[in-house]
C-alpha cells in the first residue's frame, strides 16, 4: 500500500514537476568532454548573478546532432563544442543567434571563424598521432605520415572513423591537407594495406586499443589522439612521473578550434551572452588546459606547468579553410569509406 502511495506521488511529481522557467538560470549544452573547475564555475555565478546548469549530451558529434535535432526549441541557452570541421553543419541548420562579445578583442583573431559572430572560439586543441613510448624503446618511433605506412609499422596504427568521430575527421582532413586532393586516397590505400584498425570513437581507440593509455590492455602503439594527451597521461597517472609515457608526432597535427554560440530560441539569451563573455574571460581561459586538456584562445593566457613541460604546441598545425571543409566534407567522408572500409 505504501509503495503505491509513494509511486503515485512520484508519478504526480514527474507529470508536473518540470523545471519552472527560472530566468536566473543559464543552461550550457555541451559534450561529455566539457569540464570546468568548481571555483571558476562559482565565479561566474557570483559575478553574473545567474546560476549555471551544465547539460552534457554525448561526445562532440552526438552532442551536436542532438542540438541540431532541437534547433529552435533548444534544451539550453548556450551550446559549446562545435568545431571548425563540423561548423558548416551547425550554421546550415541555423542553430545559433549572432552575438559579438566585447571580450573578443583579446582573442587571437586567427581563431575567429565566422564574420557574423554566430559562433565564438573558446579553445583550440590539435589532433595529432600519438605513440606509446614504451613500445618504441628499442627502435625509432615514426615521425611522419609517410612512415606510418611503412611495413615495420604494420598493424600498429588505430584511427577513428571520420564519419562517426571528430578526431577521426580531423585526421582525415590532416591527410588531405598534407597529401592534397590527388594524393590522400592512395595514402589511405597504403594504410589499409598496412592493416590500420578503424574504430567508431576516440574512447575505443585511445582507452581500449592504444597500448600507451594508462590502465589499458590495448596492443596498438600508435593512435590518433590530441596534442594534449601526453600531459593528460602525466596529470592523471596517479603518481609523479618524470616523463610522459606517450609522445606526439608533431608533423601530423591538425588544427581543431572549439566554438560556442547563443542557441536560437534560448529562454535566457541575456544569461547566454553573459556566459559567452565569461568563457572568453581570463578566469575561464586559464582554467581551460587543466580542465579540458585543450589550449586557450585568449592572448597571453599562461599554461599550467605540466603543459609547459609535456605538451607539444605545434607552431604550424595543418589547416584547411572552413569553407572548403564545409563544401567537401561529406564527399570526402564518402570517398574515404569506399577506400578504407569497403
Amino acid at each position: 500500500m505504501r509503495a503505491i502511495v509513494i509511486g503515485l506521488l512520484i508519478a504526480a511529481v514527474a507529470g508536473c514537476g518540470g523545471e519552472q522557467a527560472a530566468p536566473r538560470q543559464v543552461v550550457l549544452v555541451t559534450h561529455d568532454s566539457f569540464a570546468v573547475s568548481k571555483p571558476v564555475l562559482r565565479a561566474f555565478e557570483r559575478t553574473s548573478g545567474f546560476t549555471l546548469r551544465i547539460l552534457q549530451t554525448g561526445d562532440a558529434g552526438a552532442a551536436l546532432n542532438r542540438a541540431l535535432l532541437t534547433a529552435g526549441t533548444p534544451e539550453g541557452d548556450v551550446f559549446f563544442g562545435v568545431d571548425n570541421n563540423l561548423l558548416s553543419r551547425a550554421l546550415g541548420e541555423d542553430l545559433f543567434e549572432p552575438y559579438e562579445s566585447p571580450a573578443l578583442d583579446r582573442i587571437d583573431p586567427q581563431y575567429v571563424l565566422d564574420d557574423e559572430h554566430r559562433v565564438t572560439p573558446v579553445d583550440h586543441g590539435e589532433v595529432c598521432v600519438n605513440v606509446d613510448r614504451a613500445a618504441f624503446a628499442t627502435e625509432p618511433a615514426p615521425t611522419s605520415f609517410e612512415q606510418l605506412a611503412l611495413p615495420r609499422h604494420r598493424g600498429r596504427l588505430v584511427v577513428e572513423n571520420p564519419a562517426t568521430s571528430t578526431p577521426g575527421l580531423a585526421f582525415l582532413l590532416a591527410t588531405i591537407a598534407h597529401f592534397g586532393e590527388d594524393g590522400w586516397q592512395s595514402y589511405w590505400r597504403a594504410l589499409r594495406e598496412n592493416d590500420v584498425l578503424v574504430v567508431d570513437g576516440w574512447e575505443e581507440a585511445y582507452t581500449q586499443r592504444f597500448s600507451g593509455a594508462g590502465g589499458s590492455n590495448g596492443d596498438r602503439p600508435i593512435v590518433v589522439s590530441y596534442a594534449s594527451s601526453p600531459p593528460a597521461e602525466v596529470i592523471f597517472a596517479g603518481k609523479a612521473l618524470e616523463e610522459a609515457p606517450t609522445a606526439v608526432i608533431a608533423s601530423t597535427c591538425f588544427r581543431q578550434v572549439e566554438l560556442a554560440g547563443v542557441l536560437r530560441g534560448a529562454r535566457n539569451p541575456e544569461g547566454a551572452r553573459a556566459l559567452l563573455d565569461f568563457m572568453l574571460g581570463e578566469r575561464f581561459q586559464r582554467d581551460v588546459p587543466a580542465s579540458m586538456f585543450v589550449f586557450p584562445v585568449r592572448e597571453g593566457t599562461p599554461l599550467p606547468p605540466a603543459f609547459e613541460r609535456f605538451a607539444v604546441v605545434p607552431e604550424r598545425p595543418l589547416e584547411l579553410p572552413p569553407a572548403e571543409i564545409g563544401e567537401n566534407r561529406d564527399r570526402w567522408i564518402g570517398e574515404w569509406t569506399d577506400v578504407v572500409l569497403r
Partner: protein
Amino acid sequence: MCLPAAFLALFFAYPLAAILARGLGDGLPWDVLGSRSTLGVLWFTAWQAAVSTAATVLLGLPLAWAIARLDFPGRSLVRALVLVPFVLPTVVVAAAFLALLPDGAERGLVAILAAHVFFNLAVVVRIVGSFWGRLDSGLWDAAATLGASPVQRLRRVTLPLLAPALAAAGTLVFLFCFTSFGVILLLGGPTYATLETEIYRSAARLFDLRAAAALSLLQLAAVGSLLALAALVERRLGGAVPLAGERDVVRRPRGRERLGLAAALTGAAVGLGLPLAALVERSLATPDGYGLGFYRALGEETAVLLVAPWHAVVNSVLYALAATAVALVVGGLAAAAIARRRAAWLDALVMLPLGASAVMLGFGFVIAFDEPPLDVRGSPWLVPVAQALVAAPFVVRIVAPALRSIDERLHEAAAVLGASPARIRRELDLPLVLRALGVAAGFAFAISLGEFGATVFVARSDWPTVPVAIFRFLGRPGALNAGQAAALAVVLMVLTAAAVLAADRIAVRRGAL
C-alpha cells in the same frame, strides 16, 4: 490497468512515436529496410540472440536448481551475488573480459557469447529459481515411488512444471541479447553489428534519422512478434501448480546431489567469479602497488565530474529507490491486469521498452517534451522514470506467472466464505506473490542501479549516477581515471549484492507460508 497504460503511453509510446515520425517524414524507407546489409544485420542480431539465450538457459539451470532446492552454507549470498554481473556497465566488464580471455578469443563471437551469458545468467537463475523453489516436492517423491528414473523425472515432471518460468526468463534474455549494444561494440570489434548498434550509429553519429527510424521500426516489429509468440507460449504453459513453502522444499543435498551442487558452484565461481575478481584486482592495482588509492580518490573533487565521485553513489541509490517504487507499481498493476484479464496488448506494451533502442527513446524525449507544460527536459524525475521503463518488464515477467500459478479454487473458496474481491487480493494473492514481488524488487533496484543507455540521456551532469560517472572516467586518459572507474564498479557490485540480499531476506521472511 489505467495507471500502467497511461505511464507507458506518456513516457514510452509518445516520445518514440515523435522521433519515428520525424525520421519517417517522407514515408517508409524501403531502400534501407530491404538492403542487403540491413538483412544481414537483422540475421546476425537474431541468431546471436538465439544462441546466447540457449547457452544462458542451459548454463543457468544447474545453478537455479542448486539455489532453489538445496540448502548449503552461503546459499543466500550466492543467490545475491549472481545478480551482480547483471548491473555492471558493459564498459567495465569488457575490460575485465579482455584481460581474461585467451589471445585470439578476445574479440569476436566467442567473447560476445561469453559476455551475454555472464550478464544474463542472473535472469535465468533467479526467475526460474524463484519458481522452482515453490514447487511441492511431493510430485518428485511420487514419481520416484512409481519408479521414474532421474532423467524421466527431469523430463516428465521438472521441465513441464518449470516451463512458464523458463519461457519468461528466456524471453527476457533473448530481448537483452537482441538489443545488445555495448557487448557487441566493445567485444565484437568493428565487423559485428546488431540492429541496436546500427541505430545508434545512424542516429547519434551519422545523424541519419531516416535510417535510424527505419531500423527502429524493424527492431520493434521483430521484438513485437517475438513478444506475441512468448505471451502465447507462456499462457498455454501457465496454470495452477502445487505450491509449497520454502521450508518444505529446501533440504540438505544427499548422495549424488552433492556432486551436482559442487559442479554448479564451481561453474559459477569460474564463469561469474573470475571476471568480478579481475575487476576488484584492477581497482586495487594502483601505480604504486596494491592499495586503496583509487577508492580514496572517489572522495575528492576531479576534473572529470562536476561533483566528487562519491556523490554519484548517493544519487544512484536515491534514483534506484524511486525507480524501484515506480516499476513495482506500474509493473505490479500491469501484472495483475495481465494475469486476470489476459490483457495481451498491455503485456506487449510493458515489454516493448526492452526492445526499443535507448538512443531513439532518448532523442524522442528530447523532441517530444520540448514545449511547456510538457517541457520536463532537465527534470531529475526523468531518471527514475526512464529506469522504471526498463525495470517494469521484469516485475511483470516475475509477478504475472506467480499470480497465474495461484489455484483458482482458493479464490472460489475465499469468495464462498464471504471475502470481498479486495480482501481476496490483499489477504490471499498478496502474501502468495510476496516472494515474487521481493525478487522483482531486487531486480528492479539492481537494473535501475546499473541502467546506462537511457539514464545517460536524461541524467543531469551535476547529478550523475555511478554508471554515468564510470563512463565519464573511462572517457579520459590516465591510469587514475581508469582506476577510479574500476573502484566505482566495485562499489556498484557491493551495493547491488547488499540490496538484493536485503530484498531476499524480507521477501523470504514475509512470504513464508
